[in-house]
């Protein structure tokens, strides 16, 4: 069940979409600025490559812009553009299954979540903190890339992007049960991969 904030957000998006469909092309920039970070984050966590993530994010917005006239409002714009982005990313990953290398973003250490986690994983002296954080980041991305594409998508949308099971099911065009099953299996695999970091 979508939250009231999401419903309100969806109504706002629908109004903007109507304006675009009536010819206000500049209104598309509002949606771009609103969702570019989240779309980029999802694609980046799926590819672990920031250049590919930037290109795929731009392609997703271009496809949405070209197809905005066919948007009927049956789902929220958020779900619609997520589906476009994820389908483009999955197609890209399937085409480049062999060629995959990391191009990681820097950890934002000013973020309270990262500060808390780094404090939990390092000793009080803070010796070699940068090295350890970098190593943890690589291990995390390596463990994510070892997952299958579907499992990686589910764990990214649920744990990192914070979508609900129903929203993930809408985006991935599958059932909620499938989402839960994939999520459970993906967590088991990640725990086995990252057990040295868990305590």
């Amino acid at each position, binding site marked *: 069940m979508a939250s009231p904030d999401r419903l309100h957000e969806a109504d706002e998006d629908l109004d903007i979409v109507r304006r675009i469909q009536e010819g206000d092309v500049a209104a598309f920039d509002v949606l771009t600025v609103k969702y570019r970070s989240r779309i980029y984050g999802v694609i980046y*966590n799926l590819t672990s490559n920031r250049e590919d993530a930037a290109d795929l994010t731009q392609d997703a917005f271009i496809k949405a812009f070209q197809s905005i006239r066919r948007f009927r409002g049956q789902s929220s714009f958020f779900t619609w553009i997520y589906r476009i982005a994820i389908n483009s990313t999955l197609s890209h990953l399937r085409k480049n299954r062999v060629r995959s290398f990391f191009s990681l973003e820097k950890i*934002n250490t000013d973020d309270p979540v990262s500060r808390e986690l780094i404090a*939990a994983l390092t000793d009080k002296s803070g010796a070699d903190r940068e090295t350890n954080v970098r190593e943890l980041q690589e291990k995390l991305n390596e463990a994510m890339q070892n997952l299958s594409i579907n499992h990686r998508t589910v764990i990214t949308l649920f744990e990192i992007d914070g979508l609900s099971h129903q929203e993930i099911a809408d985006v991935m065009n599958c059932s909620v049960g499938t989402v839960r099953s994939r999520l459970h299996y993906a967590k088991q695999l990640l725990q086995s991969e990252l057990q040295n970091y868990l305590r």
Partner: protein
Amino acid sequence: MDPEKKNPLPAAESDGSNKVTLENLLRFKRCEQPPPEFWQQFDRELRAKQLAAIVARRPWWTPLARYVGVVSRYSLPLGAAAALAIAFAGVHEYRVYVPARASADDAQSTEASVPTVEPVEVAMAVTPVPVRSNEHPNLVTVSGERSVAKPVVYHDSAKRETAAPARMDARSLAFDAGSESTESSSDLWVASNLAAAQAAEPEAVRNLLGMSSSLDGRMVPAVRTHVEPLEQMDPPAAEQRSRLLGGVVPALATYNGTVPVPVNDRVVKDLSDDRLYESISRYSEGGDYLSIKVKF
């Protein structure tokens, strides 16, 4: 991962408040964010691509590709349906094809079983025979040169009460002569007519038979004596045997004294006169032949 590998990070404090879970680690990935200047460049590139997408004409097959994409979702049922259709069509064609082939084979076998009768055009060298139409009631003159018998009534056969007009058709005669065992009514009819004509006019019939001899001797198949064709031939085995023995026994080089068979020159050369003289066991002579029997 190697279980013996030590944790690269120092152990967390054991107070329980800093417990590291998988969710915490995955939340750590949220902190991987691009710097603010990245979005400026991102917006510029996106604007350029957006303008290019507006200006660029979309290819004509773009709508088709969209429909293909929709169809590709149902690739499995569509593929299964196509496979079923192909299988059904194959089975259907096979069932249709078999009787057609069988009928063709039947037709061929039927054609093979029925002897093909080639039409034989026989040039009739007819000698003009002066026959008066009033000399015999059964003979009539046709176009002044050919005499044809009138129909004869058979009194001894219930089946043959009337006979068709006698026609000197070489085609039908040739066909009847070829089938020895099946003497048709026309054969008997011609034979009886000839017998009647011979009794009435022997001279005319003689001339007529002389004419018929020019028709390859098959004009009257009923009176022709049948000789087995193979009996008229020399057995090839005997000739071959003579030729083979000729290589070993020069005296037997001839078969029956009538068919000269070439003697192997090498054998003759190797055979000395003394040996030839000693091997002669019997000889006889006739009017114009000399037979020598040699034993080795």
